[in-house]
């Protein structure tokens, strides 16, 4: 995995110079920690009902107020962060692997394989994700599985296209042709020479895809097609809260604000990673 971590580690120094990226990173780390440690924090129980009056506004005891079943909303939001991140990250990680393999094979082997994969990715890319979401939810039934499936379909073309493009560029390079002349098999060339050099492109797309995944998951959950109660994701909490918008606005506001913060932090970090990995090599200026 070092080929994925190395470029990011190498540019860690940039955080210090660019406050916006530093802020985004700090926010992202904070949210991830909250999500990870949530169940162990002394913020209350996310599932116990009637611990307080229903729909009560934020107070010391219930920092985010309570929902219509009298549950403290703060721990539910923290649970939501956890679910949103985990679901999207899992879907995107899986898609990255499949998409990278497909893109690399298409870009290196060319011919019929390339035609099929590239066209299929283009077709997939042109479908609006939400429409696919509705179809899948209708077919498979709402829930986390269909959310993962939709995220996968929406982000797969991203990885396929980018990795294919990078592979095409790499294929003409000296060390690849030299390996072919030396008699290396296509599998060996892809595994030893191409794969380690596409890490940078994948990392950049990962953050972008994660942000898309989170939006899709939230949208589906908001429509009631994603995460189902009693599980909560930020989108489903937003759905829950929007029903009481006029007299208990803190529900929608808090879950909406946290959702926005989460997506924004992923985007800021993604931008910073993109800038850091932008090719800085140019010809020597002397």
């Amino acid at each position: 995995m070092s080929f994925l971590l190395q470029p990011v580690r190498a540019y860690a120094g940039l955080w210090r110079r660019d406050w916006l990226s530093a802020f985004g990173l700090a926010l992202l780390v904070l949210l991830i920690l909250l999500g990870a440690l949530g169940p162990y924090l002394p913020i209350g129980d996310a599932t116990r009902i009637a611990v307080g009056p229903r729909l009560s506004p934020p107070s010391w005891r219930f920092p985010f107020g309570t929902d219509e079943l009298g549950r403290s909303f703060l721990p539910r939001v923290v649970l939501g962060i956890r679910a949103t991140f985990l679901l999207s990250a899992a879907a995107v990680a899986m898609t990255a692997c499949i998409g990278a393999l497909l893109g690399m094979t298409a870009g290196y082997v060319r011919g019929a394989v390339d035609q099929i994969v590239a066209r299929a990715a283009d077709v997939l890319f042109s479908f609006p994700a939400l429409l696919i979401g509705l179809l899948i939810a209708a077919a498979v039934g709402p829930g986390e599985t269909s959310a993962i499936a939709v995220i996968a379909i929406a982000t797969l073309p991203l990885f396929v296209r980018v990795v294919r493009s990078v592979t095409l560029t790499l294929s003409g390079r000296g060390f690849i042709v030299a390996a072919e002349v030396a008699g290396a098999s296509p599998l060996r060339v892809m595994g030893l020479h191409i794969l380690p050099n596409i890490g940078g492109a994948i990392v950049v797309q990962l953050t972008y895809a994660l942000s898309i995944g989170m939006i899709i998951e939230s949208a589906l959950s908001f429509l009631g097609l994603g995460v189902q109660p009693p599980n909560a994701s930020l989108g489903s909490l937003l759905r829950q809260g929007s029903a009481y918008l006029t007299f208990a606005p803190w529900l929608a506001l808090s879950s909406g604000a946290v959702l926005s913060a989460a997506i924004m932090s992923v985007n800021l970090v993604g931008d910073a990673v993109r800038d850091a990995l932008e090719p800085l090599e140019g010809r020597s200026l002397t």
Partner: protein
Amino acid sequence: MSALIEARGLTVAYESQGRRAIALDGADLTLGRDESLALVGESGSGKTTLGMAIGRLLPRQARREAGDLRIEGRSVFGAAEAELRALRRDKLGFVFQNPMTALDPTMRVGRQVALALGRGGGVRDLLARVELADADRVMRSFPHQLSGGMAQRVVIAMAIARQPLAVVADEPTASLDASVRDRVMATLSRLRAETKTSLVILSHDLRMVAHHARRVAVMYGGRPVEMGEVSRVLANPAHPYTRALLRADAGGRSPGARLEPIPGAPPVLGASATFCAFAPRCPMRQAPCDGTRPELRAVEGRLVACHFAEAALAEAEASR
């Protein structure tokens, strides 16, 4: 003769990832009006930095640490933004190595040249001056539809459009085919002579320089180490580096004579050199070379930065 462009003790350093690399180390240069000067050197010699410093076209990481460069007496590094832009637009012209990246790929050539001319107009005439036949077709084309040589002629046209005082050409023919190189350079030289524009050519191609420039400055370790008329410097070089460079060049050898590469590698300076930067690789190295920095001084009709220039010339004379 007042100098058009004058650099005195110019020192430029690049900061990258905490490390400092000196690209120009106290470089001195003069260019008069109606003059052609070639800056010759290998990678790391500083020739591109010096050429680009003329228009202050240096990247963000570059910092001027000492000295200055003046055009018509006005400091380039001290100029305000507006003054600098006016300088680049009206007084200077640039020709870069790759015409395909110098031209806007999404704009027709005619429109680009018109923009370069400003309000004057006269695109067709300008294209005719750079020897582009069928100007109408060229004007309608996009850059990628032109051959390398034609595209470079368009770039030259845009560089001279506003009758600049000086044109800086950075490896203008390196991306072109061997057969068109000479012709494109001939066009550039002819235009230079016609308009009395000064020309600075940055190149590693000694033969091309010998044909098309009158004066040459050989750069090493961030500054010129030998400067003078091409006919003198290239025919009978005084600086040991110039001599070594000519011995390593593949052109002009007779069959069977072995090329002599220069031992070692060019220096990467972390600080201004207080000694001769070429000393570690110099066959004539002696004690003063490691202790005292040689400055440019007049020797036999050219300027040389070497403590033992006279000895080098004498040795060459003896082996003739």
